[in-house]
């Protein structure tokens, strides 16, 4: 069965390491914060200028001056620091963030990602996404494997305007965990009960299927 949003977040959380500075994008990536393993600590970077993002505030502690990059009211964790947008993106662009998790419309076998614009339909802007994908070495893209209409989002070549070129190496969809290398998707893990045939069927881009593809366990 396809992974739920929560299961995707749980699987991503397993990539976290003790002491990681992590930037989580809007949507499913945000949920990852709920599944940090008990025995490790991570610090969340929010690109509007907060390193060490805490949980949402209690109702009486809501502060208009304390928000995250999703414009949600948040708190600062113990040991947080707050700074300007230039300093925030110095961290991001300079490669100091250990893990970035973000959503996408499409990814392709060259590691290209499209996530910010659908021509003639959606032009909200790229926000910090282009900086995040250009600055990070370690990125996990979370997305559904195919559209509602069954169109694959894992392509040989992205059809939408790119967010970044050649920068994606790991993709977690509702069906599978894949790595991108040498111009192909490499199937590393599959959702419980999802067949390799279904994944092959819903992957338009070149797909390499190893002999053994374990199911993700929960």
């Amino acid at each position, binding site marked *: 069965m396809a992974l739920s949003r929560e299961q995707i977040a749980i699987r991503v959380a397993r990539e976290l390491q003790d002491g990681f500075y992590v930037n989580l994008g809007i949507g499913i990536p945000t949920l990852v914060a709920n599944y940090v393993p008990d025995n490790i600590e991570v610090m969340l970077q*929010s*690109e*509007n*200028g*907060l390193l060490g993002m805490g*949980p*949402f*505030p*209690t*109702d009486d502690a*809501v*502060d*208009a*001056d*304390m*928000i*995250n*990059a*999703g*414009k*949600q*009211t*948040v708190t*600062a964790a113990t040991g947080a620091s*707050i*700074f*300007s*947008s*230039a300093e*925030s*993106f110095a961290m*991001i*662009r300079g490669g100091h963030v250990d893990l970035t998790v973000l959503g996408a419309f499409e990814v392709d076998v060259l590691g*290209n990602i499209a996530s910010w*614009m659908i021509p003639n339909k959606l*032009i*909200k*802007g*790229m*926000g*910090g*996404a*282009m*900086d995040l994908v*250009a*600055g990070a070495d370690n990125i996990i893209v979370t997305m559904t494997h195919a559209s509602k209409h069954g169109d694959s989002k894992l392509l040989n070549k992205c059809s939408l*305007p*790119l*967010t*970044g*070129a*050649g920068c994606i190496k790991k993709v977690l969809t509702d069906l599978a965990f894949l790595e991108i290398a040498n111009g192909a998707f490499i199937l590393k893990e599959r959702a419980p009960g999802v067949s390799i045939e279904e994944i092959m069927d819903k992957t338009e881009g070149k797909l390499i299927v190893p002999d053994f593809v374990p199911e993700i366990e929960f």
Partner: protein
Amino acid sequence: MSGFNKVVDSYEEAMAGLEDGMTILAGGFGLCGIPENLINQVKSSGVKDLTIVSNNCGIDGFGLGVLLEDRQIKKMVSSYVGENALFEQQLLAGELEVELTPQGTLAEKMRAGGAGIPAFYTATGFGTPVGEGKEVREFSGRSYILEESITGDFAIVKGWKADKFGNVIYRHTAQNFNPLAATAGKITVVEVEEIVEPGELDPAHIHTPGIYVNRIIKGNFEKRIEQRTVRSN
């Protein structure tokens, strides 16, 4: 010490000299840390054909969004313009020019503008529509694009506290783009919640040194919250 007393008493005075066709750099991220009253003064001044450089364009009816109502904005330079119906409408109707700029590049463009750096290279946007028409150059085997800096005729900034000399501190994440905009305006106007005497702010805690600031005004702020998210108990 009159020469360093930058406090003005009215918003008219704060924005004196603003003219049609000028470029305004505005601090703020979403509705957080935006110079609400200075924006309203730009609206009531009625100036037109403005270029506004700001990460966002407010929302319908609040923040920079109010400048869309009378079509005062000719061009927006922003990273994100969602959440604003009037904006989308004017954009689709071709009444509004938009230069979408990655958030980190936008921040760095303002900082560079204030710091006398006319241009810099960044990997952000290479291979995307943002890089189209821009010079590409390799450093250590990686491709980067050339981005030029931004300065403005005015910078409008929201601070927390300022002393009369124009030294400013920001509160929490309301800092965001404000100190960057502050450096890059020919005339930098800062509105704050509290004005204090010089010496009351610790020299090591000042986010924007007074040298960047031309005018200071005390304002009252609504501080609207875009997404009120809370946890139980």
